[in-house]
């Protein structure tokens, strides 16, 4: 931990850090590239829609049936008159998918299958879906997605500001596009479980973004009262200082999902657990990426267009140029915290306390920066 901890500390202080905002063009480029690939993948390959979207039946036999995959396929095709896809699952049971059959014919097919495989018909699991079921789920999902986006944009616009809301929305769309794109490119089957997973990403992707925004909002509160940093600088620092947290969050979120994926894929072979966790896994990863590389830089971009921020940038640049001309490096100094927690104060503190009211104004002003320095009282901050 100590290593990570100290990196965290240095990130926190801004000693190390990656210039996310400065290099945003690269990341925008990468994201656009991925998005285009995803859209191309969607357009060209399309999604591999599961049986739920075409209508049909999925039968799962009990474990360890003696029937082989090929003969099961034959039986199923005989019984239904349709093509059947048979998979052997991890636990030895067979998963038989027959597309395009009606829900009311399924019982007959099930009985026939049971007969041919010499198992009890009651021990076969059947999942029958009408052709519109999947569409209905997808429709509802779209509807949910739409409503959620509108609500969340309104909420973020109130809690933060519209630029952040917009950036969060872009990041969200970005995540969903990438996830569906990966599904198209890899050819994973899309099931209602996938849709559930995808919808969960909504909450998660924003969760991460919101935390970064929260720190950003906090740090830029008095931005116009100082001339040392532009909005982008501070945005960058917010990302860096919440980086450890972002990584931790993502790891902690991915761990249980990984557990699900492992069990869903390895133990059960297929099914809902697997579907949900797979799309979650992909989506979470995309979400973590976008909140760091896309959302915040985007806010910075939007913010820098504000006249106020433009003016600030001008001032900052002018000041930097001046400093450079004077040959003194702009030493990034800690702005005074300027007030103490009572518990924190060393017992020796006797000096005048800063008045709380003066805090905000005093703190970020250069004139106040040296206040308290070298005070014999030891009052440092």
């Amino acid at each position, binding site marked *: 931990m*100590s290593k990570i901890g100290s990196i965290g500390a240095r990130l926190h202080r801004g000693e190390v850090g990656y210039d996310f905002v400065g290099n945003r063009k690269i990341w925008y480029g990468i994201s656009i590239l991925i998005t285009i690939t995803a859209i191309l993948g969607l357009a060209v390959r399309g999604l591999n829609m599961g049986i739920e979207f075409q209508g049909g039946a999925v039968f799962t036999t009990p*474990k360890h049936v003696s029937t082989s995959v090929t003969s099961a396929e034959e039986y199923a095709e005989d019984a239904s008159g349709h093509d059947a896809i048979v998979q052997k699952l991890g636990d030895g049971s067979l998963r038989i998918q027959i597309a395009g059959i009606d829900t009311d014919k399924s019982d007959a097919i099930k009985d026939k299958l049971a007969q041919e495989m010499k198992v009890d018909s009651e021990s076969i699991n059947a999942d*029958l879906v009408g052709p519109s079921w999947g569409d209905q789920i997808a429709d509802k999902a779209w509807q949910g997605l739409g409503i959620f986006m509108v609500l969340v944009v309104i909420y973020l616009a109130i809690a933060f500001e519209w630029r952040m809301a917009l950036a969060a929305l872009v990041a969200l769309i970005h995540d969903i596009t990438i996830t569906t794109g990966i599904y198209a490119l890899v050819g994973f089957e899309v099931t209602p479980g996938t849709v559930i997973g995808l919808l969960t990403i909504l909450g998660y992707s924003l969760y991460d973004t919101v935390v970064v925004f*929260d720190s950003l909002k906090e740090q830029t509160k008095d931005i116009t009262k100082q001339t040392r940093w532009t909005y982008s600088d501070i945005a960058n620092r917010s990302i860096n200082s919440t980086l450890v947290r972002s990584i931790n969050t993502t790891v902690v*979120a991915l761990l249980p999902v990984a557990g699900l994926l492992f069990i869903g894929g390895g133990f059960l072979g297929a099914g809902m*657990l697997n579907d949900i966790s797979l799309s979650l896994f992909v989506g979470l990863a995309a979400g973590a990426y976008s909140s760091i590389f896309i959302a915040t830089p985007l806010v910075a971009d939007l913010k820098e267009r504000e006249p106020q921020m433009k003016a600030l940038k001008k001032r900052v640049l002018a000041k930097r140029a001046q400093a450079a001309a004077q040959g003194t490096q702009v030493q990034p100094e800690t702005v005074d915290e300027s007030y103490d927690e009572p518990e924190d104060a060393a017992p020796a503190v006797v000096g005048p306390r800063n008045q709380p009211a003066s805090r905000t104004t005093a703190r970020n002003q250069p004139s106040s920066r040296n206040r308290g320095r070298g005070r014999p009282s030891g009052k440092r901050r």
Partner: protein
Amino acid sequence: MAAPKRGRSGSAQSKPWRPLGFILIAIVALTGGMFASGHNTPRLGIDLAGGTSITLRAVAEPGQESAINKTNMDTAVDIMNRRVNGLGVSEAEVQTQGNKNIIVNIPKGTNSKEARQQVGTTAKLYFRPVLATEVSGGAATATPSPSASSSASDKATDKATDKATDKSTSSSSATPSATATSQGRAVTDALKADATPSASASSKASSSASPSASSSSDDSTSKLQAQYAALDCTKKSVRATAGKGAKPTDSTVACGQNSQKQWQKYILGPAEVDGTDVKKAQAVFNTQTAAGWTVTMDFTGKGAKKFADITGKLAQNQSPQNQFAIVLDGEVVSDPYVKQALTGGNAEISGSFTQEEAQGLANMLSYGALPLSFKEDSVTTVTAALGGEQLHAGLIAGAIGLALVVLYLLVFYRGLSVIAIPSLMVSAILTYVIMSLLGPTIGFALNLPAVCGAIVAIGITADSFIVFFERIRDEIREGRSLRPAVERAWPRARRTILVSDFVSFLAAAVLFIVTVGKVQGFAFTLGLTTVLDVVVVFLFTKPLMTILARRKFFASGHKWSGLDPKALGAKPPLRRTRRPHAPVDPKEA
């Protein structure tokens, strides 16, 4: 930043035991409640417990798209509930989901095939003339009213009734009052004004006196007799089959419950009017005649004529043959008697209805008129074996997920895990207990996606601690000692946690409202755990942190406490006076 109470931190922080005590009491109370209610495990959904789950989608008749509305769907659910649970299994549950779906869950061990047929086919509602009736089963068996035998001479159909009556009178003591009570309801013209002269109606009626009944052969009549005699409507299994599948054109036997909740058996004539003839039925409170709750029916044009015919016939008869039975799926749901021919195209059934009864009957009457049909959208049959396996897999996945998270927290936060892990546990216990309690109260059933949701929620819960811990560490890096760091970090972390949990909750709520089926279960768990996360962080994690911050182990920044200022790279106090190089920030502004 949402004002961290500067200066002396708020009073809440100084009394950390209070919220801790509160949450512990809540846990004990909830757990106690769980054990007291006897529902020690969450109710399992079909995919975990095994059974059949059917999703039906309402399809409106063309041009009547507005028919898919809440009232109609509720009516349909009522009817289906009756039908499925009439099979002799009462655990089947029928509920609406979203605005056009109905979910029917049939637990394992039930004849799912039959149940599927029941919900899949449209319910049949008929108006049949009553030929004979008596209270069925039990010691206090009542004969049909004395008038039954006297009226036997009236019609050709009454051969059946006659015999029936004979038999029953011989076998049981006559209690004339039985009919009186069962006949408490009368059909009258809803609109007295447009009552046409009954003479014409009755003349028609008498001329066409029960054609089908008279044509029924002796053979089938006697069979019906035998059936009727043997019929014991108090037995559920008997009821489930009695009168089911009878052709509308045949006479049949049926069971029904009278207003005294006694089961009554009937011989019924051929159906004269069916459910589709009813245009509309509704329960109204009749203030004019002081009849209390009544049910009014509007008939379609064709229905009105048929109804006028049948009532005209019936009005001339003696009890019970002046009654008609409203038969839904072979079960008599009401058996009002007719005072006069009703030709106005509408009718009113009056009697000592409660509001509920009246509405129930109105619902059933309107069902036949519902311009809806239902299509099976998905049918999932899960054997108990697979259900158990999936549950097992879900639990293992959860355990692995939890273990991984705990391990990560241990490595990364060391001593702080003393806070994080119990917080996770509290969260887990609360989730489990509340899920168990929600089973019986709101019918929550834990299904596979819900298990998934719970597992995913581990991440969300752990994330709140991470936000808080990282904040504390930041404060320590600023050079604060632990206790002030905790108090300063909290308001900021609190806001972050609230904002992000709100977004998460919003997603869950939208999903829950908009979606159907499995997605809903998932959304519900996610929402629940998000709320619990906030509760746990506020009432458990934070107070615990405050308390432990007083311990030397944490306060001194022990190497294993996870809060070692040195390891965290806190600014050593000395450096500050000199400020060699300078970190930044307007941060914490």
